[in-house]
């Protein structure tokens, strides 16, 4: 089963490499597309949905390259596996929680996925590690062309690609970067930064998209406008603001180092110590502390742990991942104990076991 394979690996976007990856975790682009001869999802009957899912899947499989993807029938998955794919950012919460026929096509390296029967008939996404929007755009454009050679999209001379929600019409494109901004949070400048982003029509969301809380100081910054600009323009608009954000975050980190290095070092060390020694710990607290440690590693305050390990722990300690990896039960208290064990096994130095005795 593909999901069991995924659990053991880590996704491409967690690799922790790519340009500016100490602050920009990943670059993501998604396209919303609909099939011309079906109603939008909201007006689909059960028959329509089943038909639509089969039509899109079969059409994609007729293309040699698209046939190589793994097709997962989301309607047949149990809630744990669905939550797992959400944590992995391969499907949205909306697709996970929807009803009726729906599926997702996933590339082995997890850089691209195509959701079928989400808010729109197709939600195509490409995700690259680090700040790398340009190549993400080239990849998704190619993928979109491949799908379009098999499927007739709903397209309007004036309005472009038609979408269920008019906020996505035109290009149907959302360009986003996932940024890690702990120093701006600590120095309480984050709201100010977000307000200035809103003024230039950029949207800020939490780690798991619309309505989700900012977890572990991760934020998604994306375009709000989709109509009246070219795709290249939209990529440029988000790209232009990223160096500014990076600069703000670096300045805030410098400030913390210069003004109260002892405080900062203390905070980071306590976070690291808690993660290494806690006997039970919630997912939220884990995210919060991992965020501090991640910054500490990037600033050279903590030496003996690698960024890819921290990135992996952000995802692997979330409830569904933890349950799959440790084959533990569903209760929260048991999960909190398992999570602490899992963190210890990854963060405690291994060589000193003899010193205890």
């Amino acid at each position, binding site marked *: 089963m593909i999901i069991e394979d995924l659990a053991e690996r880590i996704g491409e976007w967690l690799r922790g490499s790519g340009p500016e990856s100490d602050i920009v975790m990943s670059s993501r682009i998604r396209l919303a597309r609909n099939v*011309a*001869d079906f*109603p*939008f*999802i*909201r*007006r689909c*009957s059960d*028959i*329509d949905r*089943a*038909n*639509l899912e*089969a*039509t899109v899947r079969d059409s994609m499989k*007729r*293309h*040699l390259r698209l046939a190589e993807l793994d097709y997962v029938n989301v309607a047949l998955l149990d809630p744990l596996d669905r939550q797992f794919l959400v944590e992995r950012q391969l499907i949205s919460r909306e697709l996970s929680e929807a009803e009726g026929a729906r599926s997702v096509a996933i590339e082995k390296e997890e850089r691209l996925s195509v959701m079928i029967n989400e*808010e729109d008939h197709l939600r195509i996404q490409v995700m690259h590690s680090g700040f790398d929007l340009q190549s993400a755009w080239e990849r998704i*454009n190619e993928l*979109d062309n491949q799908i*379009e*050679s*098999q499927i*007739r*999209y*709903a*397209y*309007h001379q*004036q*309005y*472009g*690609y*038609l979408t*269920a*929600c*008019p*906020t996505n*019409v*035109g*290009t149907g*494109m959302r360009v986003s970067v996932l940024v890690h901004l702990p120093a701006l949070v600590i120095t309480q400048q984050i*709201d*100010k930064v*977000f*307000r200035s982003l*809103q003024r230039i*029509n950029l949207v*800020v*969301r939490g780690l798991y998209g*619309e*309505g989700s809380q900012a977890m572990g100081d991760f934020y998604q910054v994306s375009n*709000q*406008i*989709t*109509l*009246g*600009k*070219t*795709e290249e323009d939209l990529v440029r608009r988000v790209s232009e603001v990223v160096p500014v954000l990076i600069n703000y975050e670096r300045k805030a980190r410098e400030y913390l180092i210069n003004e109260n290095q002892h405080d900062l070092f203390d905070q980071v060390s306590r976070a690291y110590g808690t993660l290494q020694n806690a006997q039970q710990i919630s997912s939220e607290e884990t995210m919060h502390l991992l965020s501090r440690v991640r910054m500490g590693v990037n600033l050279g305050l903590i030496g003996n742990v690698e960024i890819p390990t921290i990135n992996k722990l952000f995802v692997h300690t979330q409830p569904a991942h933890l349950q799959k990896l440790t084959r533990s039960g569903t209760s929260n208290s048991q999960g909190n104990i398992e999570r602490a064990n899992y963190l210890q096994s990854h963060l405690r130095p291994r060589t000193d076991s003899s010193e205890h005795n």
Partner: protein
Amino acid sequence: MKCQKCEKPATFHITDLTVEPLLALHLCPDCAKQYLQPEQAALPAPTMSSVIDKQLKLEQTAEELKELDSKSCPVCGVTFFEFRQAGRLGCPHDYDFFQAELEPLLLNVHGNTKHVGKHPRRVPLESEVTNAVIQERRELRDAVETEDYERASKIRDRIRTFETQARDGDRDSGNSGGESSGEGAEV
């Protein structure tokens, strides 16, 4: 006068000079405080339905709105009321059918009403044709619901004919066909 964001009386009358065009607001003390001190407010992106509601409150009288709400798309059957509540349209034809209502919304959200980006490489299917198929799909659902299986089977045949023709058309126009026998999508 009622507050534009809730049902309480509006006692604050604000003209926001920081946005273009200038925005006149009539708010109750609580909403005014939230508007003037956004750092205390959450930062969610405006949802479609909130944008629509705001727009309609500024432009429509209650009676006009009532009439508008009952307007229903002949292709998919979605009413304006349903769109306004859910923020989702029902089919591609809604963009033409509700054009007069949608244009100000598009302008509000995107600052534009004309797509300038990428377009499909192939000529899109005629909207008359796709609208007719979407209508057929709706009739199929009705026929199944009323257990009129004879009618359902006829409609299903017509949809299959369209799907087969569309696919054969793709093959003729030189697209990588692969094996595309006459098997329509299972129902």
